């Protein structure tokens, strides 16, 4: 709380976590209105950058590989995005293929199964956000309260382990556990006097199974970042709270959670940006035609459409759509976060 108040006083309006060194007062100044002064600002900023570079050239050399990587692997391929608007032929190439305007997008959006896939993607992601996102935080808080070091280490290792198992094996485990004849879940149901259920062919069960097994797989590993953040909290805060007679729950509520908030918000923004992506490989392994109704997501839809006829243009159109939606989601999440919690990525 104290940090946030301090920053508000400094006039920036938001905590500029990633700007670090470059956030000089000139740059953070509110945008000027007249065009001449704006140009002046830009020119000045450029000059500052140049002199900075001359002074700290070692730092910029260290930065260079990452920038080159971005340019080569993320910006150059964007040239190919134009095939979303073309009738693309590999042999004719990107230039040689004829333009067809928005035909590929029309084909996508007039397709009820694509729309169903969009809906399923968003639902699976949304439910993951609601149910899976808080789990690592809770887990980290719980680990933090374990005072026996040996026990804590063992518990942590056990929860990390599933992260390192490949999706194929996890899917195999899930299929075996839920098998109607030999699966442990159905044997339990049977013993308790319930009907056996062929879970993986019933659309209603798909999302809980998918999200549940993902929580089991990733929660332990995802809790590491929160544990690291907790380790960074000033112990003096706890000491003084203890002096004031705060209980452990009160300390979690008034010290640990507020200190974690920046990390939680950033993780949240990153997650929201990935709302439109789900673990394609894992879905392919678990779904059946019988569960397409809830399990068919954008990526699996494109996979099936693409496999039949190599429809690159259609796939690119869907990808472009994905990217635009993801961008909107990230920007709005960031805006919301800045507005209501004063924490944001930029």
């Amino acid at each position: 709380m104290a940090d946030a108040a301090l920053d508000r006083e400094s006039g920036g309006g938001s905590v500029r976590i990633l700007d670090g060194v470059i956030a000089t007062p000139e740059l953070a100044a509110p945008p000027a209105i007249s065009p001449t002064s704006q140009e002046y600002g830009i020119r000045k900023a450029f000059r500052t950058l140049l002199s900075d570079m001359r002074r700290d050239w070692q730092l910029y050399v260290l930065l260079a590989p990452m920038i080159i990587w971005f340019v080569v692997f993320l910006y150059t391929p964007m040239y190919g995005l134009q095939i979303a608007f073309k009738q693309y032929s590999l042999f004719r190439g990107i230039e040689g293929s004829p333009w067809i305007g928005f035909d590929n997008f029309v084909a996508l959006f007039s397709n009820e199964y694509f729309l169903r896939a969009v809906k399923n993607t968003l639902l699976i992601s949304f439910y993951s956000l609601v149910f899976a996102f808080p789990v690592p935080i809770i887990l980290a808080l719980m680990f933090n309260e374990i005072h026996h070091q040996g026990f804590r280490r063992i518990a942590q290792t056990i929860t990390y382990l599933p992260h390192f198992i490949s999706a194929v094996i996890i899917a195999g485990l899930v299929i075996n556990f839920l098998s109607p004849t030999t699966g442990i879940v159905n044997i339990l149901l049977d013993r308790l006097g319930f009907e056996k259920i062929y879970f993986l062919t019933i659309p209603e069960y798909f999302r809980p199974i998918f999200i549940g097994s993902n929580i089991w797989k990733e929660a332990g590993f995802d809790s590491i970042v929160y544990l690291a953040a907790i380790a960074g909290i000033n112990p003096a805060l706890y000491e003084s709270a203890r002096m004031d007679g705060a209980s452990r729950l009160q300390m979690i509520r008034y010290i640990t959670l507020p200190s974690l908030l920046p990390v939680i918000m950033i993780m949240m923004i990153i997650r929201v940006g990935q709302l439109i992506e789900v673990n394609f490989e894992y879905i392919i392994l678990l779904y059946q035609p019988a569960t397409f109704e809830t399990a068919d997501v954008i990526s699996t839809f494109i996979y099936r459409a693409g496999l039949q006829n190599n429809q690159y243009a259609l796939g690119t159109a869907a990808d472009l759509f994905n990217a635009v939606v993801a961008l909107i989601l990230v920007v709005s999440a960031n805006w919301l976060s800045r507005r209501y919690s004063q924490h944001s990525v930029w």
Partner: protein
Amino acid sequence: MKRIMTAALLSALLAGAPAAAQDTKTTKIVDKPLELTIHMHFRDKYVWNDDWPVAKELTRLTGIKLKNVASKATTLSREAFNLLMASGNLPDIVAGNELRQDFVRYGMEGAFQPLNKLIDQHAPNLKRFLAENETIRKAITAPDGNIYWIPYVPDGKFARGWFIRYDWLEKLGLQPPQTVDELYTALKAFRERDPNGNGQKDEVPLFFREPDTELQRLLVLWDGRSSGSDAAHDFYVDSGKVRHPYTGENYRTGIRNIAKWYAEGLIDKEVYTRRARAREALLGANQGGMTYDWFASTASYNTSLKDKVPGMKFLAIAPPASPSGKRLNENRRSRMRPDGWAISVTNKHPVETIKLFDFYFTPQGRLLSNFGVEGQHYDMVDGKPRYKPEILNAKAPVNAQMWDIGAQIPIGFWQDYDYERQWTDENALKSIELYEKGNYLTDEFLGVSMTVDERQVFDRHMPNIQTYMIEQMQAWVLGSRDVDKDWESYNAQLKKLGLDQVLAVMQKAYERQYR
């Protein structure tokens, strides 16, 4: 002349390779050695290798050496081909598997040379083969009337068949089922009367290793179809009309019965999740009763499980007759694979290349591409090629050994089933013989080549239609929906998704190509 011949023979004898030297005379294509480049990446892990014994022998026989340009680093043949096309830098020959549609499409766009004239003038054996096999000629012809590629032509008839536990039938006092009703009785008895004798009702009468494609073969038992080709869910042709197997009254009847069988436990309850391990697991546990699967590999379990399941007799039965009295075995070895090779437009030696393609349809070329090198991998016994014992008795299967020496690879060659018969299990041969005697072979639809506009219609509608069809089918089989209740809405939805347009396009392409 005579003297030259004698001299040639004499020098051949002196060289100590009599059989080898004389046959190059008829097979030589070029006087001066010629090197052609080839891009061939296949089955996701092999590339053309000029060190293969078969490739070396090819060079010796024809004078042409093929130099590979495909990258060994790639582990996806599809990707390798795509990269090649996108690079625009084409080698003399492009080859590989699953390339049929690409050869046609890029051929029409100008990447590959039309072969019709070349075949006419320079490839007598290929010409004769295509004249004798009209359907294959039609199937490889592009919508513009040109032929752009030469396919891999498999040999042999039957691929999969119905296998049942004869020992269980005997134990229960049943005859091998001849009709679908008798089959029902037998499966019911498998389920109810404990043929494995362990006191538990754990028998799985019908199981399928590939439920997405093979479970539907049951439709044939009620006069339906599951696919017209060896691809899944494919169209078929019924008296000149292209139809889809998942439509019509027979399909409805079939699905209704399959759902009933599933509900009664005659079909594996876990059929959609057990998958690849189903056959091995259920036979090994002495629980599986019947399946539809490949002859050779299925029959081999009689030997490999001899100790684990004593007395097991898992052999083929003739396809049970449908209510209308028809016995049909739907799955067969295709007469033409979507694999093969084509000549790039940049190739400067099209005549020599087509002669090379022609060589594979000569007797020598067939021996080389099927059996390897004479004296090294096989010997001629009574005029027939016989594998050497060290090949037949090796640990690796013969087909894998052939791939390693460059034979039986997906170029445009004509397979000889005799290559496989030599190492097929006795039980499998007996089973295949049963099907051959009954002549249960189905005619196969070799597919159509579409124009760009036709393909656009097809691509727009078909993926959705197929998704909807198989989604519904599973729901019906599993009993979560009822086929009779859904039937009207099913047909309405198919109409809405554009099945009529797709059928119209298919029909048009079919008539252009096969009439």
